[in-house]
């Protein structure tokens, strides 16, 4: 195991190349700070490591190698859309002209980046069929927040103050109910039927004058397309509610089907899913929101506007007095949005459609191959969308291996594991999303691995329960980590041995 950076530390080891030099730094350095500042100074230097630049480069380079990533491994993590992030998008976003600009410098110095953002707003409108888009949310969940806050603001603006309930299918992603609560709504779960659709009767029974709206993913996180979407929209709208679209699964339909056409009033997109911006080991992403006309006044600021002269300006509270407000100190995750813009310019409409087509083809192919190999899918009668669910409940019953065991064993084979135990309503499930950037050969190799693991499960279930055994990272990685211990005795930071 790579030691912690703190273990490399030696007192007084400095990287003086990073010490500021020059008159101000030396003459007025810490020693001679004005007396007035003294009472505010810290007594002990912060306990940071003291290591050389070479130590740092080696340590973090080696740590990087102890990761699976899209750049090194197949990463069929359902719901997360781990597809190839074109390097050009990164390279362009890292151009000094973009990186160096201060957020509060004038718009005159930002016409280049603002042109990109404006066009991105326009492209996302077109792609989703919404009337307007704000790019400011910093991830999907913040996009949801913006959307639900707009729904709230809408009802409030109409004096429709009793709409306190947000309907959410039981298969929904956790951010949906969490967001609804955060926005002050009570969450009401709507059950799913046996083929993965929302139970219409239950929905019908649930709606009423308290209904603020319904949050829906379509295709859903069950990997199927909600066929009754128009009816659902009708039910919600008829009850005076609004329809929110969780766009995390847009990769399945982008360029072919538009949330706007399905009847959604507010949507968010995950650029770090559909638009191939890198996930960065957990962010940053960006979660632009789009709205139908009636929600336009409430969009979060700032947005980019275009003046008749062709120059771009920021639209803020001044121009948008009904806005739900600001969601970040400045303009959101601009650098991430530039990557998304670049990606969309590379694909165009035809390219996005191909994305949807091939994401769907790969998922269906993989589902078919696994089904042929004897795996049980959650919704065998349905077409997969861009993802699908395998349930291992039979295997679990038979030999006592779980989805977790399967997942861990896949790591040994050099595959990142699919999403497990989500959606919660399918027991021992693997949610598998291959994405369009993977080749048939990779899918075939994955099928082979799944078959091999299943055989191992039958002949030697303990082998799976003990997996992983030798992860292909330098040094062979670790064996299975104890989550329970971690939560029971939280060890959340290193402390020097006394």
């Amino acid at each position: 195991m790579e030691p912690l950076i703190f273990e490399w530390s030696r007192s007084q080891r400095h990287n003086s190349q990073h010490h500021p030099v020059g008159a101000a730094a030396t003459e007025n350095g810490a020693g001679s700070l004005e007396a007035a500042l003294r009472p505010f100074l810290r007594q002990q230097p912060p306990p940071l490591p003291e290591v050389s630049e070479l130590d740092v480069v080696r340590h973090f380079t080696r740590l990087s190698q102890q990761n699976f990533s899209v750049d090194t491994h197949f990463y069929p993590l359902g719901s997360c859309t781990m597809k190839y992030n074109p390097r050009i998008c990164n390279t362009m976003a890292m151009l000094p002209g973009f990186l160096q600009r201060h957020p509060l410098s004038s718009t005159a110095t930002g016409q280049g980046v603002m042109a990109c953002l404006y066009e991105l707003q326009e492209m996302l409108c077109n792609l989703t069929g919404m009337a307007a888009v704000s790019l400011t949310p910093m991830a999907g969940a913040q996009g949801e927040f913006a959307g639900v806050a707009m729904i709230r603001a809408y009802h409030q603006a109409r004096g429709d103050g009793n709409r306190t309930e947000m309907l959410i299918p039981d298969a929904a992603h956790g951010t949906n109910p969490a967001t609804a609560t955060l926005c002050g709504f009570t969450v009401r779960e709507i059950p799913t039927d046996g083929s993965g659709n929302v139970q219409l009767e239950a929905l019908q029974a649930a709606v009423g004058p308290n209904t603020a709206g319904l949050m829906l993913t379509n295709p859903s996180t069950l990997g199927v397309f909600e066929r009754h979407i128009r009816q659902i929209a009708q039910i919600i709208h008829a009850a005076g509610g609004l329809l929110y679209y969780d766009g995390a699964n847009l990769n399945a339909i982008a360029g072919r089907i538009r949330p706007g056409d399905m009847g959604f009033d507010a949507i968010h997109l995950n650029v770090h899913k559909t638009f191939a911006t890198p996930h960065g080991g957990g962010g940053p992403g960006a979660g632009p929101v789009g709205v139908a006309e009636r929600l336009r006044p409430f969009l979060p600021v700032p947005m980019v506007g275009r003046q008749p002269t062709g120059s771009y300006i920021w639209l803020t509270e001044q121009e948008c007095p009904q806005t739900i407000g600001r969601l970040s100190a400045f303009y959101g995750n601009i650098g991430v949005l530039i990557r998304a813009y670049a990606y969309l310019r590379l694909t165009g409409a035809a390219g996005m459609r191909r994305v949807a087509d091939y994401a769907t083809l790969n998922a269906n192919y993989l589902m078919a191959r696994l089904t042929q190999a004897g795996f049980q899918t959650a919704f065998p009668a349905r077409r997969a969308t861009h993802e699908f669910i395998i349930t291992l409940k039979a295997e679990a019953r038979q030999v006592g291996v779980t989805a977790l065991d399967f997942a861990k064993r896949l790591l040994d084979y050099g595959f990142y594991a699919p999403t497990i135990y989500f959606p919660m309503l399918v027991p021992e499930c693997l949610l598998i999303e291959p994405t369009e950037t993977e080749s048939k050969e990779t899918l075939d190799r994955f099928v082979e691995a799944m078959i091999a693991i299943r055989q191992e499960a039958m002949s030697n279930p303990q082998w799976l329960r003990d997996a992983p055994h030798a992860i292909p990272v330098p040094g062979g990685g670790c064996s299975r980590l104890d989550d329970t211990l971690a939560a029971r005795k939280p060890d959340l930071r290193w402390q020097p041995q006394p």
Partner: protein
Amino acid sequence: MPFIPHTANDTQEMLAVLEIDHLETLFEEVPPELLHPDQIDLPEPLGEMALARLMRERASQDERGLLCFTGGGAYEHHIPAAIWEIASRGEFYSAYTPYQAEASQGTLQVLYEYQTMMAGLTAMEVVNASLYDGATALGEAILMAVRAKPDCARRVLLPATLHPHYRQVVQTLLNGQEIEIVPLPFCNTGGHTVPESLHHHPARSFAALVIPQPNFFGILEEVHALTNWAHQQGGLVIGLVNPLSLGLLQPPGLWGDQGADIACGDGQPLGIPLSSGGPYFGFMGCKQAYLRQMPGRIAGRTKDKQGKEGFVLTLQAREQHIRRAKATSNICTNQGLMTVAATLYLSLLGPEGLHRTAAACHANTADLARQMQTVAGLSCLFDRPFFHEIVLQLPCPAPPILARLEQLGISGGIALAPYDGLLRDCLLVCATETRTPADNSRFAHTLKTLLAEEKGHGTSDF
């Protein structure tokens, strides 16, 4: 097809396995009226070459090489080259949240190291693995404080010395929560929140007091007195800090007798490019006691089956994917890669480098203040100790001066009038360690010339 590896042959073979003839068939379950028949109206696809040309043109439009004296929550700092050369490595950059810990030890160990460093820097007991940015981190901190203090009123004291954008973001985030935001006025001469002025807020009348240090004006608040007072009233203290300043300034964990309960802020100064405002990252730490109220991901150290140490995401029961409607927050994707960069930054600078950098920032701004005060018509608005950012009082409105400065290659700070009518003709400026005394005098001289011109105009207009 860009980024889609399928050959015509592959597609055929795969369709054959599915026993269908056309890709369209895959969408047969979709109501036909929803299938958009035509090309959606997007610009024609570009090849990578054409895209690169376009983007280079756009970036160079914005590349002015301005000498930057603008701060206000985002600062131009030296970013060691090693940081982004390593943070951009594919294994960091193209990985997901480390759900499968065994295949993500690299990212998880970095998070654990990050948490340790930030805990040390802020003197907090535990730190999470990042939030979106400083402003949302503050919003989350307030929500957390209100949850943690069910015995107090759902009110939070928010000084007017807080960054106005932060105030706006907090407002947005709290809107659905029926939490009252109580503004606290600031001292006209000192630019700070006067502890004595708070006495009319009785005990338990608020869940938390927010203390920005340094505050929006660069002024240092009386953190000890404020902290002790709030604790006496039974409220929590939320310290909003510039992490780089903590190379020099007292960390929130040591404010007053018991220390702030929650510390948060924006991590941008720790190696993150300005990039028109993002991506940056929010950080948050708290006392152990409030750990289970903390939002966001947390990495923890544990053992593997062989008893070897390793890292996992832990305490997930706080989070939306487990707790759903009852989660501590809705946050899911956070700003992971930015914490990798910050960890690299703190490792490369170390305690000495961070101290020197903070001291140089302050010394440069002090030098700027001195130089500016020699310019006729210019003065510093506030008289209290500051860190690294100051408010200049101009003899005329700031915006036209700023525009002229920009033409002359200087990003001259932030006009405060739009934020506060009382701060008309005021300019918020800073000089980080990237500025030199020569830069400062160029700024001062240019400003002098512009003010003289302005005065000339004024007279001739008269």
